[in-house]
C-alpha cells in the first residue's frame, strides 16, 4: 500500500515574535495594531529599546517626535535595538 501527497492546501498563522502582550504606550495587544493602523503589518512591527521595553513602531515614533527622548515606561534614554 502506498500513499503519496499530490497537493496540500494548508493554513498557517503568523504573529509577532514578542513576549510582551501589550504595547506600553497604546495598551493594545501586539496581535492587534496601534491606533493608527488598520491591520498589523511590516509598517508597524514591535520595536525594542535598550531597556527591553517593547512598543509599536508608530507609537514610539510618535512619542519620540514629541521631543521625549526617554522610554515612556522606565525613563531611561531611548535607544533602538534590532532583533535580528
Amino acid at each position: 500500500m502506498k500513499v503519496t501527497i499530490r497537493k496540500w492546501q494548508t493554513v498557517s498563522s503568523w504573529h509577532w515574535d514578542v513576549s510582551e502582550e501589550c504595547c506600553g504606550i497604546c495598551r493594545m495587544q501586539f496581535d492587534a495594531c496601534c491606533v493608527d493602523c488598520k491591520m498589523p503589518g511590516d509598517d508597524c512591527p514591535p520595536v525594542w529599546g535598550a531597556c527591553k521595553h517593547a512598543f509599536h513602531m508608530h507609537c514610539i515614533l510618535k512619542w519620540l517626535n514629541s521631543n521625549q527622548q526617554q522610554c515612556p515606561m522606565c525613563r531611561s534614554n531611548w535607544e533602538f535595538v534590532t532583533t535580528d
Partner: protein
Amino acid sequence: MSTKPQQKINLTHLKNYNASYQQADNTILINTAWKLLEDAIKTIHSKNASSLSFEELYRNAYNVVLHKHGEFLYNNLKKLLDTHLKNIAQGVEAANDEVFLKELNRCWNDHKTSMMMIRDILMYMDRTYVDQSKVAPVYDLGLNLFRDNVIHHKQIKDRLTNILLEMIKKERSGEMINRLLIKNITQMLIELGINSKIVYEESFENQFLATTAKYYQLESQQLISTCSCPDYMKKVETCLKDELERVSLYLDGSTESKLKEVSEKQLISNHMKTLVKMENSGLISMLTDDKIEDLKRMYILFTRVPDGLNLMKDVISKHVREIGREIVMDEEKTKEQGTYFQSLLDLKDKYDNLHINAFFNDKQFQHTLHQSFEYFINLNPKSPEFISLFIDEKLKKGLKGVGEEEVDILLDKILMLFRFIQEKDVFEKYYKQHLAKRLLLGRSVSDDAERNMIAKLKTECGYQFTSKLEGMFTDMRLSVDTMNGFKQYTQTLQSPLTFELSVHVLTTGFWPTQNTAHCILPREILHCCEAFKSFYLSQHNGRLVVWQTNMGTAEIKASFPSKTHELQVSTYQMVILLLFNDTQKIGFKEIAETTGIPIPDLKRNLMALTSAKNKILEKESESKTIEESDVFAFNTKFKSKLYKVKIMSVIQKETPVEVSETRHKVDEDRKHQIEASIVRIMKARKTMDHSNLISEVIKQLSSRFVPNPIIVKKRIESLIEREYLERSKQDRKIYNYMA
C-alpha cells in the same frame, strides 16, 4: 314748545316753572304714547301687524325715551310681555304629549317674530336707555321672559326634557322620529341662553348625557354577554357612528365631545379588559389568526379611550414573549438552526405585517414588539451562534434556486433579528469561525455576497466590529501574492518540493487560530513547510509562523490492489494515512502518540476514514464508535467507481469543551474591552465617581455586549493595582486617572 325766557326773570324760578309745565304736559303725552304702543304690541301678538304704521310707533317710542321716560317704557313693556307669555305658557302646558313640542315650537317662532318687530319699534330705547342703564336689550328681554315664563314653567320644564329624551330613545331603538322638530327645539334652547349654553345644558344636555350613560351601560352588558369580541366591536362602531350622526342632525355641536366620552366609557372602557381576554375571539386569537380588520377595529376603538392602547400593548407584548420563548426554548427546533430561525423570521414577518396593516405603524407598538423580541431572543444563549450559522448557510456555495437578490432580502431580515442580540461579541466569534471556513475551503457563494454582508454589519455595529472580519479578506488577498512569490522561489531550490504546496497565511487575532501546533507533521511534509517558512520570513521580519493543521485539505494518491484513487482528505486524515506507508496495522493509541492529533479530532477523522461509504481503513472491532482499543489497517478491498474520492469529514459540532473555550475567550476579550473603556473614559475625565464610571462603561460597550457591573468593578480594582487609577484620598468612591 320752546319759550324765550325774559332776561330779568329769576333764573331759578324760571327753571322750576318750566319743569312743572313740562311734567304736566309730558304725562299726558307719554300715557298717550304708551297706550298706542301697548295696543300695537297686542296687535303684533295677535298677528295683525300689517295694519300698523311703523313710522308712527317709532316716533312715539322715540318721544317717550327722549323725554327721559325710558324706564317707564321699559318696565311697561316687560309687564306686558310677562303677561303675554304667561298666557302662552298655559297654552303649551295644555297641549298633549303628541303635539307638545310642535306647540312649543310654534309659540317660540311667533315669539321671535313678535320680538323682532317690537325691537324695531323700540330701537331708540335700545340705543339710549338700554345702553345707559345696562339692562337687557329689548330682544334679549323677550328671550329671558320666554325662558322664565315658558321653558322654566313648572309644568313645562321636565316635560320638555322627558319628551326629548323619549324621542331619542325611540330613535335608538329604530323608530323614525321628527328630527327637524328636535333640531328646532335644541336650537331654541341654545338661543335662549343668549351668550351661553346654560339653558340647553340645564334643560336637555345634562339629562341626555346621564340617560345615554345608563342606556349604553345596559346595552353593552347585554351585548358583551352574547357577542364575540369582533361582533361586539362592530356593534360598538355602529353605536358610536349613530351618536355622532345624532349630534350633526339635531343636537348642538358642543355635545359631540361629551357624548363621545360618555358612550365610549360605557361601550369601550368598561369592557375592554373583558374584550381583550375573550376566549376564542379576543385579542390573542385575532393575533394568532391574523385578523387584520378586527385588529384594526380594536386599535381604532381603543385609541379613543384612556389606557386602551396600553392594554393592547401589554397583551401583545406578553403574547409575543410567550410565543418567542416557546420557539427559542424548543429543544427540537433549536437542534436545527434552520427551522429555529425560520420560525423567528416568520414571527417577525407576521408582526411587522400586523404593525403596518393593523396598527397604523404606531411607533409605540413597534417599540413594544422590539422589546419583546429582544427579551426572548436573548433567553437562549445560543442565539448569536444560530444567527451566524443561518447566515453561513445562506452564503455557502450551492444554495439551490435562490437568487442573489433573494438572499440579500433574507440577510436584511436576519439583520433585524441580529439587532436584538445583546451579546454581539459572541456573534462575532462565531461569525469569524464560519467565515474562516467559507474562505479557507473556498465555499463562499461569492466575494460580493460576503462583502455585502460585512458592509451590512458595519452599518449596524460600526467599523470596530468588522475591522477584523475585513482583515480576513485582506489576508486572503495577500496569500495569493505570497503564493505567487513562493512558486518562483521554489524553482530556485536545490531539492524541489515533493508535492504542490499552497498556504494561506493568516494574521493571528483576525482568525480563529491558535498559537500552538496541533499535530506532529511527518518529515517529508516538514521539509516543505520549512521551505515555505524561510521564504516567508525572508520577506517579513520579526514574525513567527504556526501551522494550523486542524484546517486545510490535501489531495493524495492511494494505490489499492484493484485501482489507484485520488483521495480528497483533511490535513489530519493525510497525516493518519501516511502512517500506513510504513506499517500494516496500527492501534489507536499509537496513532495518537505518533501524530499528536487531539483525541476528539482524531476520533472524528478516523470515523470518516472507516465510514461505510468510503471505507479507506478497516477497523477490527464492530463497534460503531471509535474506541481507544481499536486497531486499524488499510482496506485492501476498497472499491469505488470514481477515480476521485472525497472523504467527508464528520460534521463537527462544538464539543462541550469547545463551547466553554469559546465562552472563556469571549470573557477574556470582554475584560480587555472593559479595561480599555475605563482607561478611555478616565483619560478624558481625569476624575469620576464609581457609579458614574460604571454606567458610562456600560453605555460605551452596550453595542457589543452588556457588561456585568461586578466585572466592571473588578477591572477598576485591577487597574488601581496596576496604577492606572487611584482612589481619591478625600472620597474612596472617587477615582483619579494617573498619567
